[in-house]
């Protein structure tokens, strides 16, 4: 006869309502876990989607997603010809924007308003206004090389040599939509899903040359201004050439050379060849910096997102402790309600361990049911979060173990109270 289950059945509403309360708290714990995993996945998505083993950047620079490295494009030919290299792909990448409000649903607008109200006394109100530009990570890649969009969920990949892009669904762009960047129109021909930069900005893929144009092509008006100013001061083409040699003045010729620059080279190593050996060769002979993909992810995760992951983890731990305290208080209250029954059980000769087991079992049952319900609610709510939230069944399994331990510990106060119950309580009254 399981006394814990019988009691829970008898106090069904009380037990279930308490369990729902615990499950809501545990749902938040799961959501935080999902947000943490989301941040970690966002930090690694682009790197892993590129399917490169090594990342080559300018000497002394960190990886291409962390610092802006510049390399001549033709370096990739030299690297590709090295022993052990299966493929080398020139890549261009940088954050850019277009004048296009981010996709907004009713829920998103509600969250904006909520954020605005919530921060009204903290910051300038207009800081929280809805933005009118769409920020994204633009990646340019060479046709038939690694570095392009991994999985197309709608439309197709880039086929033309110019003016086609593949965007992530998170941009809110649709297949067939035309977007204007640096004076040229680009057609969205396909969509990816969940391909974002480490800061969760969506990725837009373009051909290498298009990306170079978008990111490195100087503004024609700026060039005209420079020519006019330098020409007006000194007069004549020769004077212009002398003037632009002066430090601090941009060279018109140098600006056009930017179109032959890239940010990084993604390298695929031949099967069976040591990545470290290839990396050492490149470092030694080409005087470049080389990172493995794991190191690249590490830079993004522990460089850019380290503090947010640690902050959320601490908050998650605090919530777990609070959940434990709440389970303990509920179990204690349940036990107080049963003091007389416990006295009767003791008088009837019930084994002490059995009475304590009843209390612990109820706490554990509440914790386990709360965990399962909390996980289910978390899974159901994931799509409504603006950033990636990714909890798994594995998280639930891990939490079931943790919450069992927490519930046992939390119920010890109630057990202690039960230990103090004197069976004489029911005699002579």
């Amino acid at each position: 006869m399981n006394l814990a289950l019988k009691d829970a059945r008898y106090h069904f509403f009380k037990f279930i309502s308490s369990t729902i309360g615990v499950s809501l708290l545990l749902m938040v714990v799961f959501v935080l876990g999902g947000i943490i995993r989301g941040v970690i996945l966002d930090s690694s998505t682009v790197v892993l989607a590129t399917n490169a083993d090594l990342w080559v950047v300018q000497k002394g620079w960190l990886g291409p997603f962390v610092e802006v490295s510049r390399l001549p494009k033709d370096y990739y030919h030299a690297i590709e010809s090295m022993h052990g290299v299966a493929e080398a792909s020139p890549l261009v990448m940088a954050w850019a924007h277009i004048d296009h409000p981010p996709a907004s649903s009713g829920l998103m607008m509600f969250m904006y308003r909520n954020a605005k109200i919530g921060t009204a006394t903290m910051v300038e109100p207009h800081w929280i206004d809805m933005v009118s530009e769409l920020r994204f990570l633009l990646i340019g890649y060479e046709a038939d090389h690694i570095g392009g969009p991994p999985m197309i969920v709608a439309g197709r990949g880039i086929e033309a040599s110019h003016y086609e892009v593949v965007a992530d669904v998170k941009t809110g762009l649709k297949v067939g939509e035309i977007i204007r960047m640096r004076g040229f129109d680009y057609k969205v021909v396909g969509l990816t899903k969940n391909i974002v930069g480490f800061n969760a900005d969506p990725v837009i893929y373009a051909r290498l040359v298009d990306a170079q144009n978008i990111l490195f092509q100087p503004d024609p008006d700026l060039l005209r201004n420079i020519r006019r100013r330098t020409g007006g001061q000194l007069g004549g083409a020769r004077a212009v050439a002398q003037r632009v040699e002066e430090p601090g003045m941009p060279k018109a010729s140098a600006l056009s050379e930017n179109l032959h620059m890239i940010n990084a080279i993604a390298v695929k190593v031949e099967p069976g060849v040591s990545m470290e050996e290839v990396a050492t060769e490149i470092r030694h002979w080409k005087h470049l910096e080389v990172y493995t993909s794991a190191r690249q992810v590490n830079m993004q995760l522990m460089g850019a997102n380290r503090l947010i992951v640690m902050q959320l983890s601490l908050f998650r731990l605090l919530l777990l402790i609070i959940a434990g305290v709440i389970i303990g208080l509920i179990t204690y209250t349940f036990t107080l309600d049963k003091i007389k029954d416990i006295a009767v059980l003791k008088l009837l000769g019930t084994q002490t361990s059995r009475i304590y087991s009843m209390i612990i079992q109820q706490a554990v049952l509440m914790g386990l049911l709360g965990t399962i319900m909390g996980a289910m609610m978390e899974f159901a709510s994931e799509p409504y979060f603006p950033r990636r939230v990714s909890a798994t069944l594995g998280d639930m399994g891990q939490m079931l173990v943790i919450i069992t331990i927490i519930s046992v510990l939390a119920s010890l106060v109630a057990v202690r109270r039960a230990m103090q119950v004197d069976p004489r309580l029911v005699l002579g009254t």
Partner: protein
Amino acid sequence: MEQAIETKKLVMTYGKGRTKVEALKGIDLAVNKGELLAIMGPSGSGKTTLLMILGLVTAPTEGELILDGDNIYKRGKRDFQRLRREKIGFIFQFSNLIPFLTAEENITLPMDLIGTSGAKAHTRAVELLDYLEVTDRAGHLPEKLSGGERQRVAIARALANRPAMILADEPTASLDTDRGLSVMRMLRKVSSEQGTAILVVTHDERMIGEVDRVLQLVDGLVTSDESQSKAKSTATKEEPKSPGPVEPAGK
């Protein structure tokens, strides 16, 4: 006749020095199997203390207690929980059934505690429910039972493990006269038919007609120990006028 319980010079003292209170002052008592004994006396007479000692909840300061032929305190530390499970049944004033168990589960509980198999326990519970005429209430929770039905279920629970002795603490106090008498007749029937010794602590003189013996306790001493017929005639005369000494703390 075989004795279910016997006490020899039971003394119970609370406190020390000036605060010392002698709740029992050398009680000698013997109850046979199948005998129904009423323990009566005013508040502070030591009834509850005696009940606690007989129920193995409290150990006496001095004296011997022989339960079902077993001298309890002579062999050092004993597992009183186990002895209570196996040898003693309890009936309380307010039945004190476990509220989250049905009538049948309440009866099965003591058997479950000593490891009786589910099928055997069920058979015994059905038998007891029938014996105490509450078969149709088997699946009901205590809150759905009347006061009299609750006490019958409590009697069935006390009988479940065929104990040597049943201790009943004011079993009729919360019932009206008819229901109280009905419960006492049921106890009468149980003691004579099942051969169980039943000790009833009561204030209720209306019930003494159903018992075999009446033990009068005043200030920790047995002032009379009479058979039912004699008790009836003297009970009213011996009713104490004063409330007696204050019950020690913790009683």
